[in-house]
Each structure stands twice: as structure tokens, then as C-alpha cells.
């Protein structure tokens, strides 16, 4: 996978860059003597480039390695191989202690606002905790004011500082989580399905909040989701993942209006049609079978077991993202071809 994500270059240096990122989790057996019997290949050779103020959307079904990718990017997991660079400095292989100063720059927003806040701490303690961990960030005297400012920034009343998380709704809790992530003024926010646990109406509010914060603070987002329409709304670029690999990537219109990889096409064709009159007037691709196990992924192209175009070549050769490019956008398929699956016509 040599082609790099982020072709729509803004002319600036990327704030976060990952090259050939691999994360394999060993599966161990045995009681006294542990031996490794295999590896879960959660993330297998992912490249990405994220520019300041831009949003990279990552989509894919559950189990495709999206969340592992998020954990790698924020430094919660150490990569098996490959590099992660933050503003040009390598952070992928740092020890926990040397990683500390860099933690301020990349923060994570969680999926479930009900488990991501400690139920025994007040909102003030939760949002103020980053300052206790990094005392050099804000002098002790200014912390209370800073916490109030953060709450105000995410649209919560600063008076709620002494409340407990359970006194808030899901959307408000997610705002608290965002305020905590913003406390140290990070440059990159990795959002791991930040709205999928919320009601649709609340999803819109949180998405708008994230966009406003991006404009105000110049944040770069890695936005992970399985909801394609949400990603389309917020992302400048989209990467589609399948079984630990990026299969296609490009700008929003390139992916949504001109998908070239069979998997992307199948994924897009599963999005419901909002207009009841047009229902049934769009091509639908129903994939056969299940996602193969990441412990023993198929040889060659990982999608070949469910692909209607698969040939012998797909089993022998691993398609790179450049293979299906042909002057449009990176697609990891030997038989990449545009197919309209999003527009229903009567």
C-alpha cells in the first residue's frame, strides 16, 4: 500500500501521519507455558495522512479494525510495526513515560457516553482531570475558570460543574466527553463512533458542535463511524476499511458518488433510501456469507470470498491501493469499476 491518503494536499505538513501501520494481537494457549497459536490481524498495513483543520472519515463494518486503528493513533496500543508521526516526530514506539507529553496533542472521543464518564466524579472533576495529570498545562489558580470555559465551549452551562454524569442526557454527556478531550488543547481529535449511541436529533447537534469546534480551534479529526451518511456530512476524505485494510479512499464525492471498489459499492447500496417512492428503484447488492475471521484472513484480496468479481488472480496477489486507481482515486481492486449504487431513479 504505497499510495498515500490525503492527496487533496492542503500544502501544509500533515499533523498526523501513519505509515504501513500493523497491529496483530497474539492468541496464546497454555496454562504454564504460553505459546502463540495465531494472530488476530486487526490492522494490517494502513497508511494515512491528516492535515490540520481537516477531517478524515473511516468507515467499515464492525470488526474491521476501526477501533484498533483509533487506539493506535492515540497511543493506547503500540503498533506491531509501522510508524505513527505526530508533526513529523515518531511516536509509535515510545515508552509510556516518554509518550506523556505527546498525549496532550491527540485525544479520543468515545462511542458510549454512558461508560466514558466516571459516575463517581462531578463534571468539574471529569473535565478538570487533564489539568491534574498535566499540571504544567494550566496553573492551579486558573483551572476552575478553564473548566467553565470548556463547558461553555461545548454548549453546557458552566453552573453544572458540581453535577454528576447521571444527571445529564446522552447528548450532554457526549459534550462533557468532548470538553474533557479538548481540555489540553489537542491538535488531533480521534472520534471513535462519537454519535452512534445517540438519538438521530442529538447526533445532528453533536456533529454540528464538532464542526464548530473544528472551525474555532483548527482541529483535525479522525472520524470513525459505521454510519455512512454521518461520515459524508463531516469528512473531507473517506477511507473504507475491510478486515484491517483500507480498500478505497478519496474525497466525499469520489467515494459516495463514484465508488469503484465492490465492497464500497455493496456498503453504499445498503444505505436506506429516504424517499418511499423511490424505494426498490435502486440497485441493491446483497453480499453472501460473513466477514472472514481476522485470525486467518483470505489470501490475496481479503474481500475475494464475498466478491462477485473474484478470479484466481485475487487469491494469489494482494491488490495495492494503486492497482485500481486508473487516474481517479486509490482503490485496492484489480477489477475496479464505477457503479452507481447511491442514486435511485424511477
Amino acid at each position, binding site marked *: 500500500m504505497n499510495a498515500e491518503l490525503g492527496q487533496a494536499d492542503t500544502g501544509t505538513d500533515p499533523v498526523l501521519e501513519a505509515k504501513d501501520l500493523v497491529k496483530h494481537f497474539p492468541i496464546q494457549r497454555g496454562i504454564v507455558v504460553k505459546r502463540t497459536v495465531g494472530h488476530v490481524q486487526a490492522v494490517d498495513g494502513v497508511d494515512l495522512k491528516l492535515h490540520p483543520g481537516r477531517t478524515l472519515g473511516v468507515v467499515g463494518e464492525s470488526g474491521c479494525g476501526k477501533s484498533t486503528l483509533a487506539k493506535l493513533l*492515540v*497511543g*493506547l496500543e503500540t503498533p506491531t510495526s509501522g510508524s505513527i508521526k505526530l508533526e513529523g516526530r515518531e511516536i509509535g514506539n515510545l515508552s509510556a513515560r516518554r*509518550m*506523556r507529553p505527546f*498525549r*496532550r496533542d491527540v*485525544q*479520543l472521543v*468515545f*462511542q*458510549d457516553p454512558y*461508560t*466514558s*464518564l*466516571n459516575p*463517581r466524579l462531578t463534571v468539574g472533576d471529569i473535565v478538570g*482531570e*487533564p489539568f491534574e*495529570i*498535566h499540571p504544567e498545562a494550566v496553573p492551579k489558580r486558573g483551572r476552575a475558570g478553564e473548566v467553565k470555559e470548556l463547558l461553555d465551549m461545548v*454548549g*453546557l*452551562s458552566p*453552573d*453544572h460543574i*458540581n*453535577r*454528576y454524569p*447521571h*444527571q*445529564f*442526557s446522552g*447528548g*450532554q454527556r457526549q459534550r462533557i*466527553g468532548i470538553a*474533557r478531550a479538548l481540555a*489540553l488543547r489537542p491538535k488531533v481529535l480521534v472520534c471513535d463512533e462519537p454519535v452512534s449511541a445517540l438519538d438521530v436529533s442529538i447526533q445532528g*447537534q453533536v456533529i454540528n*458542535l464538532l464542526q464548530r469546534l473544528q472551525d474555532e480551534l483548527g482541529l483535525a479529526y479522525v472520524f470513525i463511524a459505521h454510519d455512512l451518511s454521518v461520515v459524508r456530512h463531516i469528512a473531507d476524505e473517506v477511507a473504507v476499511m475491510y478486515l484491517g485494510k483500507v480498500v478505497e479512499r478519496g474525497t466525499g464525492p469520489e467515494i459516495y458518488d463514484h465508488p469503484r471498489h465492490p465492497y464500497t459499492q455493496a456498503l453504499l447500496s445498503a444505505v436506506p433510501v429516504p424517499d418511499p417512492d423511490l424505494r426498490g428503484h435502486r440497485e441493491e447488492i446483497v453480499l453472501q456469507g460473513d466477514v472472514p475471521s481476522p485470525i486467518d484472513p483470505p489470501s490475496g484480496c481479503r474481500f475475494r470470498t464475498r466478491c462477485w468479481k473474484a478470479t484466481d488472480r485475487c487469491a494469489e496477489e494482494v491488490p495495492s491501493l494503486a492497482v485500481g486507481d486508473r487516474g481517479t482515486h486509490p482503490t485496492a481492486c484489480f477489477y475496479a469499476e464505477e457503479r452507481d449504487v447511491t442514486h435511485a431513479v424511477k
Partner: protein
Amino acid sequence: MSELTAPVPTTERQASLWSDAFRTMRRRPDVIIATLVLLLVFAMAAFPRLFTDKDPTQCLGREARLRPDTWFTGDHPLGTDAFGCDFAATLVHGTRPTIALALSVIVASVVIGLVLGIYAGYYGGWLDSVISRALDVFVVIPMLMGAILILSLFRGRVSTESLVETIAAPAIALTLFGWMEFCRYTRAATLETKNLDYVIAAKCLGASDRRIMFKHILPNAIVPVTAVVPTTIGGIIVTESALAVLGIGVQPPATSWGVLLSDGTEWAGGGYVYLFAWPLGLLILTVFAFATFGDALRDALDPKLR
């Protein structure tokens, strides 16, 4: 965006698990009675002079074994014991070693159990294996047998000069065989909590292991532990008595309820049942109060039972 904030009045009560539990327990009559009994016992331990003006060490041989025929009045409201000491004073002054022993054992056991449990659960790996196997070993040795073995080592070498020296040996023995339950509860709660999102969020912010363990995990682990504490105190008091009856717990001339029980059994058959019945009654009442309190506390702290 302030219109999106919670429309909750600022006067709303700060509901938390503990205050809810307190509110539930306050309404139960059995808890109120148990609390009153415990307060009485603690008061006896802390201020014995409030309950008796006699010195338990001032004994007159000619007044030995006076039955409490006067019923709570007269010179010796509960009669006198085999050596002619005022029995009410002996009973009241015997409360302090009993309660001090129970409390020191429970505090030490909880601290040891919490620390070992949280380290085992959080770090896992070989540390967990070592602690868990050690725990298994202590669990399979019956507490009484273990305590007998340990206390045999101290036998005859214990002075009874001060409270600390009186209770030190049984306290060490009982703690050694009492920490496992708390360790197990804490380890389980730690395993449950350590992969929750808010712990991962703290890690992501760069929090140290110690901060995560004691600020984020411990407050959650302490709930199941608290629920078993009162019941365990009751158990410790009973075991202390058993050790005293066997002659290896608190050593006479120091007194505890167990020592009194032990002495009382010698005379109960000869018509001096009160020497046996009073310490036994007090013991049963106290253990019962601790058990009732513990039971109610466990119910109140378990959200599923509400």
C-alpha cells in the same frame, strides 16, 4: 447553545449511591434497632465509666459468686464472678478489647485485601497468579485451625499490660486468615472496571497507573467490599470468643467477652448461669446487630434490588 443545557432545577438533590443507600436504610426498623445496639456496644467500649463506677480489678474473695438477686440495683447489679469482682464492671470493661480487636482486624484485612486485589486485578500476569494462588492457600486452611497454629507460637509469651499487647497476637492471626474475601471482591471489581471507557479515557490523558487504580477503580471496588464488612465484624467477634474458650485468644487476666464466656462455662453448671448467659447474650445481640446491618447495607448498595 445554552438552551441545550439541562432543564434541571439547581436545588435538585445530589443523588449518589451512598446517599440513596443511607436513605433506604434509614427507613428500616430492623436497621434502626441494630444501629442502637451497636451504638450501645461502641459506647461501652469507648466510655466504660458511663456504665459502671466499679473497678473490675477490685475483687473481694468474700463477695465471690453473689447472684444478681437484687436485679439491677444494689452494690452489684449483675452479681459478682468467681473471684468476687463486680460482674457488670467486668462485662463492660471486657467490651473494649473485643471491639478493638474486631475493628483492628477488619481495618487491616480490608486494607490488605484492597491493595492486593487491586494490584492483582489491574496488572494481571504473574502478579495476579502469585496473589491468587496465595489466596487459594489461605482459603483452604480453615480460619480456626490456622489461628490455633499461629497462636500456639505466641502462647505463654504474651503480656497483658496494655490493650495493644493483649489483642496483638489474636489480631495478627485473625487478619492473616481474614483478608481473602476482600481481596477477591476487589480483584473482581477491578477486572470489571479496568476496561471501562472512562478508565481508558484517563489512560489516554496520560494518567499514571496509581492514579487510575486509586481514583477511578477503587471507588467502584469499595462498594461490594463495604457490604460485607459488618457481617465479617460479627464473624470476627465470634471467632475471637472461640479462641478465648480454647484458651489461646486474649489471655486472662485481661478480659474480653470470649474470656468471660470461657470462665462462665465453668460455673454455669453449678447454678451460676448468669456468669455464662450475660456475655453470651451480649455477644449474640452484637453479632446479630452487625449481621442485620450488613444485610441491609448489602441490599441498599445493590441497585438491582431497589
